[in-house]
Every structure is written in structure tokens, then in C-alpha cells.
């Protein structure tokens, strides 16, 4: 009986793939199957995979169709009670999955802290360590646990998800898009019956000079953050009647969008801002009501202010229950540092 299906997709990671896979195969404890989807992988990357001889490793090949498609393919093949993901250029310590499983109890979703390896080779707690510490310190019935989980980094290495949750809510990644994690993350956090946090770091995320992530660019792929945000808001519109959940979903999406806007090439900035507002116009009107920040989330105030500003854009129709403060003639600056 397979306890955990560990999913990795690869493309052009070359020699980085071997250590990533070996770190999964070396997990102490639970019985594993490892699904590797070669998503149009190049010869050097395939050679790394084929150099590994382990009966637990299954290789699925497809022509390049994107990370989302590759992960979805693996989800269809997965047989484990639990599912986890690791990028092909990252690593897990050998105790990671055993500790997450030990923390799980009856929960359907287990989050774990991690480490960040910078290009200068320094090691740090991953970006969301403080949020996860806060989450772990709260009792299981605390209403802030789910919002805190939603606001943790929306990436996939930090979770262990029961397959029953994935099946019940048809959790999938958005085909054809980058920045796919925010959708899957939101669905998992929103629908999970029970959340748990592991006390041990469970992955090391690498930033490297020589190996720049596809999602690190300044090109039009950044617009995918808007597309994926839109679908995310659509998928949890019913649950978003809950103000705390809505607040956390909006803020986690806004953080991604704000980051993308700050790095996208200048030619696209005005359009990016326009499309952000357009995306909000297309979304359920409930999302135009931004709840106030509870005290424990006070560090997110700048992000909250930024999003409030966007939601006051005159092109957005006012929400029937609450008329936003529209300043006459006020228009969001379309292009930072530019006259409108």
C-alpha cells in the first residue's frame, strides 16, 4: 500500500535533477512512489533520470506542455494516500515526509517550513517562516489558522495533501499557465478538513544565478498571475463569503500580482495594471469588499492599502452592499513613477 506519491516534473534542469530525485528516494520512513514527468525534457535531463535505478520511480514522458499539465498528468496516475510535489532543482532533507506524516493526525493538509538557498550560498528560513510559526502556535479551532495557511508561500514543496481531498474537490493545476501554484494552494487550503504543520524543515528552495527560473522573467508570462488569480477567485467564490478567508485569498493573490507588476518590463506595466483592474471587474462582486486586517496580520498593512487602492478604481462598478469611497477624478497611476 503506497503511502505517499511524490511528484516531480522536469524540463531543462540537467544535473540538478539527480540530487532532487535522490533526495526524495532517500526519504526515511513512509512507503513511496515517485512519479517523474518529463515535460519535453532535454537529453541531459532525461539522462539524469535514466541514471537512477529504483523500482519506486516511474517516468512519464510528454511533449512540452507546461508544468501545470505535467503535474496534472501525474495526479491522474497517483496511487498514494498522500501527494506531495518537489521542483526538479530543489531538495528535501531525508526526514521531511516522515515528519509531515507524523504531524498529520486526521488533517487533510500538512504544511511545513523550509529553507531558502540564495545565489551567494547563504541559507535562510523560507519567506513564510514567521507565518507558519504563528499558525503552529494557534489551537486547532482558531479562526486565523486557515487565513495564515493561505498567506504562507503558495508553492508546492511545502505541502502534503491527502488524495481524498484532491479527488473530492478536483484539485488540479491550471493548464497552460505559469504561476500555477496559487490556484492549487488556495483550493487545498480552502477545502482541507483539518490543517497541520510539521515542526521540521521539509525542503530547500534554491535561487541560482546560472539557472534562472521561468517565473523570474520580465516578459508577458507575468500576465499569467492575473489569469490564475481570476480562476482562483472564481473557484472559491462561494467560500469567499467568509470574510477572513476572502481577505486571505485576496491578499495572497495581491502579493503575487504586486510582485509581478514590480518586475515586468516597462512596456507592459500600464497594461498590467489595467488588466489587474479588469480581472477584478470580471470577478464576483463580493471580492470588491475587502475586510479590515485583524491585528495579527498587521504586517500586511502596506499590501492591504495597495489592494484597497486598486479596488477604488472608478472603472469597477460599486458593490451593492457597500459603496467604496470613490474620489472624483481619482485614477490609479497606470505606470509607476509616471504621470497618469
Amino acid at each position, binding site marked *: 500500500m503506497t503511502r505517499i506519491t511524490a511528484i516531480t516534473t522536469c524540463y531543462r534542469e540537467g544535473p540538478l535533477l539527480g*540530487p532532487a530525485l*535522490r*533526495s526524495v528516494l*532517500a526519504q*526515511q520512513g513512509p512507503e513511496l512512489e515517485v512519479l517523474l514527468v518529463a515535460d519535453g525534457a532535454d537529453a541531459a535531463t532525461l539522462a539524469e533520470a535514466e541514471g537512477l535505478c529504483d523500482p519506486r520511480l516511474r517516468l512519464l514522458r510528454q511533449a512540452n506542455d507546461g508544468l501545470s499539465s505535467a503535474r496534472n498528468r501525474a495526479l491522474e496516475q497517483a496511487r498514494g494516500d498522500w501527494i506531495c510535489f518537489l521542483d526538479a532543482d530543489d*531538495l528535501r*532533507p*531525508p*526526514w*521531511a515526509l*516522515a*515528519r509531515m506524516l507524523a504531524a498529520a493526525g486526521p488533517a487533510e493538509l500538512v504544511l511545513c517550513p523550509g*529553507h531558502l*538557498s*540564495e*545565489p*551567494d*550560498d*547563504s*541559507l*535562510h528560513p523560507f519567506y513564510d517562516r514567521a507565518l507558519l510559526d504563528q499558525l503552529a502556535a494557534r489551537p486547532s479551532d482558531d479562526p486565523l489558522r486557515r487565513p495564515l495557511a493561505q498567506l504562507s508561500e503558495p508553492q508546492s514543496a511545502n505541502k502534503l495533501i491527502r488524495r481524498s481531498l484532491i479527488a473530492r474537490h478536483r484539485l488540479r493545476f491550471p493548464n497552460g499557465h505559469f504561476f500555477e501554484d496559487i490556484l492549487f494552494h488556495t483550493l487545498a487550503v480552502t477545502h482541507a478538513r483539518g490543517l497541520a504543520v510539521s*515542526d*521540521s*524543515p521539509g525542503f*530547500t528552495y534554491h535561487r*541560482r*544565478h*546560472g*539557472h*534562472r527560473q521561468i517565473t523570474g522573467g*520580465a516578459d508577458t508570462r507575468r500576465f499569467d498571475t492575473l489569469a490564475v488569480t481570476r480562476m482562483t477567485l472564481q473557484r472559491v467564490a462561494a467560500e469567499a463569503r467568509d470574510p477572513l478567508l476572502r481577505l486571505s485569498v485576496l491578499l495572497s493573490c495581491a502579493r503575487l500580482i504586486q510582485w509581478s507588476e*514590480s*518586475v*515586468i*518590463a*516597462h*512596456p507592459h*506595466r500600464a497594461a498590467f495594471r489595467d488588466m489587474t483592474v479588469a480581472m477584478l471587474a470580471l470577478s464576483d462582486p463580493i471580492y470588491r469588499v475587502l475586510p479590515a486586517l485583524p491585528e495579527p496580520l498587521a504586517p500586511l498593512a502596506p499590501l492591504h492599502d495597495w489592494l484597497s487602492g486598486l479596488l477604488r478604481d472608478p472603472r469597477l462598478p460599486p458593490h451593492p452592499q457597500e459603496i467604496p469611497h470613490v474620489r472624483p477624478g481619482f485614477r490609479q497611476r497606470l505606470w509607476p*513613477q*509616471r*504621470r497618469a
Partner: protein
Amino acid sequence: MSDPVFVSAFGHSVALDPGPGGFLGADSLWRLREIYEPALAREALPDSGLAVDIGAGFGAFALPFALAFPGWQIRCFEPEEESYAALCRNIDRLGLRGRVQATRAAIVPGARGGRALLRGDREKPGFLAADLPEWQGTGPAQSLPALPPAHVAALTPTLVKFTCPGQEAGLLGALQAAPPRWLIGESWQPVPSTLLAPETRAYVPLAGTPFRLQQGPASGGLRPGLDVVVAMYNSAATIRACVASTLTAGRDDIRALVVDDGSTDSGAEEVRRAFGDDPRVVLLQKVNGGCASARNHGRMASDAAHLAFVDADDTVDPDFFANLLELARYSGAPIVQGSFAPFEDTPHGRLFAEPPEAAAHAGFPRQPFGSAQWYPLPWEAAVTGQPSIWRRVYRRDFLDARDIWFPEHIRAFDDLLFQLVSCQHAGMIPTREDLRYHYRQHAAQDIRAGDERMIYSLEMYRLVLRRAVEEGWPRFDPFAVSFFNTLHWTLETIRPDLAEPFLQGAAELWVLMRKVFGRALDPVDRSVSLPVAFARQRRETEARLAGFADSYAFAYLDSAALHVDMVRASA
């Protein structure tokens, strides 16, 4: 027995008796969480091996490690009596006696007769000194059992974890005889990175600094080391002194790549005569293509993880590059730099001017790096400063990943573009003021020629503008500051008949910059102090564009006035 502390690491939680040292106990837990656990979380350790724990304390590292890696043997060394006793109790209570052995000893170079000295100050981690007759320490000293580092090397450990303040260099020196596969710990002195064996994976932060002991970027199959690219064109008189000064005695990982850019003098002969037998000096010859092409040629021929580019008529302080390479390795920064001192040759020898940036940089807080000092230079200060790409050491993978090259068609001041783009992407630049690059001033310098080549700088600022737009740079005002600085010093040297066309091109470019970045640039506008030709041209260009809204796309327009060959053609 003291109250137990709960230690959670490597996937195991365990209650341990911390012994008496409250401060040292908290310190051990901090290191466990910040150093040992993150360092081992990214390593694939084999099923079995021998780990040595130097300065094991009550076992905060060794015991969770032993539980997490049940196939490993662990040897602990702890000199302090009560911590050693707590360690033994913890080993026994966990039933680990079969795999974890404790020895009551410090590891101290020069230890003889099993005795060392411990300073009396118990509030700080114990700095030990061997029982040498010249011991000059103050305060009460205490005798402790000690073993020399060779004792550890003789065990041929797979992994060494060390907490031995002040003894790190001696330990690593001894371990060269049997390099461990993994080395983790905190260091209180900057151990020379050359003591690290290439096969050792190290994570050793330097206490009180953001630095780490490391050999440099591990990826990309690059050779750990520095290649100093020397672009040589008719520099026979100076090349020997230049190359000799870049090398460091006893270091074969610092090489000079002399690129002879089609010299018509005896420079190449000079290099062969002076360094023909020296494997650290490589002579590359190519047809003439300009300084930029020579520097790029050297980079393409290099396999080193770090690069520098020096001019063939300059020299550097002794061990300038060895020291900068160490700063580059310890910081992992994309760029590190020394300072520079302009000099002129006089009949009485070199006459040095004051380092031009000394006053401007005096306010940056100095930080210790061993016995030396460094300061973090913000990239904006580097961008607005004098182009000085030659006093820096670059990470090769950084230059490649950011696609930063010298523009080959630009035949003067090609380092301006390189400087602006590399510093923009570098972020903070660790700087050592005490290491000086000697920058020769003479009448034949490009920047003093005053001919049409001055216009190359205008073309480069347009290239920077375009790149800023395409890469979405967060700020452009530092580049505008640099632009006006360049205009002002160019006007001091440019041939009088070229001043007007130069100013016209500059004014057109300034209008384009403002059409792209708008009023954000107004605070740095220094055009009022320029000759009237600038304002005249600016007004005319702005009038022609009055009907057009601002747009990033103005970065893509160009003018014949910004191109040297076109200005020459119309002269």
C-alpha cells in the same frame, strides 16, 4: 542534573540535560537551528559514516544527529568538565553508547601533553590557546586536556562539525591530510578558503558577519579561481609590471590571461620573456578589435569562477586580487571591489593622487573581516561613481546569467555600459578600501583624446535606457545622475568644434529619457549648468514631440547624433 531542554533537529526531538552553561547551551541551540540543520537539510548523506563533533557541548548536535542517522558513528570532543559530564549522561540515557563516543579534550593546534589554556571569561564561547610559552592572555587561565588537530585527521571522518573558536585555521590545515566530505560549523576567524579541499562541501558562516567560508560558485563546472583578463594593445613598456602585480606568490588559482589585441609593438615578446615558464600566465593573441573585444575574448577563453579585467598600463597593490577573491568567495556577492588611486609618472617616480571616492564613501559603515575592514556599497553609489570596472572581481555565472558583455563596436569608454549594467544588477557591492588599484593617468588616454569617440558615451546611455525598459529596472534616476556627470566632464575635454554636436545629441537623448521615465527624473536634471546649445536643442526636440504622450517606446528611437560613425560621416 539541570532542567532538560527540548532539542528538535534532523527530524528528531529529544530532551537533553544541558549541563551548567546556560549561555553556551542557548548558543548551541541557535547554531543547531541556523547552521547545522539548514546545512544538512540540503545534503544527501550516505547510510553510514563517521562524524566528528568538536566542541560537542552537551550534545545538542551530536545526539539528534545520531538519532537521525542510525548507521553513523559519532566521535565527540568536549574539554569543559561539566559539559562533558552532561554529554556522557545524555549519551547513556539515550542508549547511544555503542555509536557515540565522547572524549574530554579540546582540539588545539600545538597542543602538547594534553594541556591547553582556557580564558576565564565564561560569558563568551571559550577561546582556547595552546600551552605555548608566549601565552599573553589576561585573566585566570585554566588547564584543560587538549589534542592536536592531527588527531582528528587521523580518524578520517566523513563529516566534521566544529565549534572551536580561534582554532579553525589550524583544524582545517590539519584536515587537508584527510579532507572530510562535509564540513559544518561556525568560524570566528576568516580561514583561508584555499584550505578547503575541492571535494569538501562546507557550510561555515563567519561569526558576526553575513559571510561564509566557501570556495565559490559550485555550479557550472567552472574552475575555482580567478582569471585576470589583461587587454593589451601596444603596452610593451608596462605589461610586465602589470601582470606581475596581479599574481600572488604561492597561488596558482589566480591567473593572468593576457589578450594581445593585435599589438604592433613587442608586448607579446615581453610577456613571453618575463612569464614564459609561468603556468599562471596565459598569452592569447588575436587580430585587433578594440579593448572591448579583447576583454570579451579573454572571458570566453576563461574557465574560472571569478573574473577581473585590468588595463595593461596599470598595477595593483600586492595581493590585491588574492584579497579580493577571498572577499568574493566569503561574500558570494556578484561583484566585490577595492579602491583605486590615480597616479602619474614623474621623474621622481609615481605621484599618487588621493583616492577620488574616499570622502564620498566615508559614511558607509565599516565592518570587520578578520583583521581587515569592508563596507557595503549600494549599487546606486556605484552607478553614479566614476567608471572603474578594473578594480572589481566578478562572478562569472552572474555575468553570464545577466548577459553582461563589453559592447564590441564601441571603441572607447566601453567600460561605461559594463559598469552601469553590472552594478544595477549586483545590488550591494562589498568594498575594501585598503586594497588599491593603481590607475595610470597620461595624456594618451582615451578619455583625454577629446575626439569623436566622446560620442560613444551617448550611444551607451541610450543602450542603458533601452535595457532599463526591457528589463523593468526599478529606478532610472541614478543613471540620469551618471549621464549628467559624463556630460560635464566630457565638455571639459572635448574638441571645441565637437562640443555643439555632442550637446545636441545629449539633449535629444535627455528628451527621450524624460519621455520614457517622466518627472521621476526631474530632481536629477542638471541641464541648467550646461552650455546653451543643450537647452536650445532640448526645446526644439520637445516642441516637435509636444503632441505625443509619454511612452516607454521612446527608448527605441535613436538619432544619428548618438553614433560616432554617423557624426564622423557628416563632419
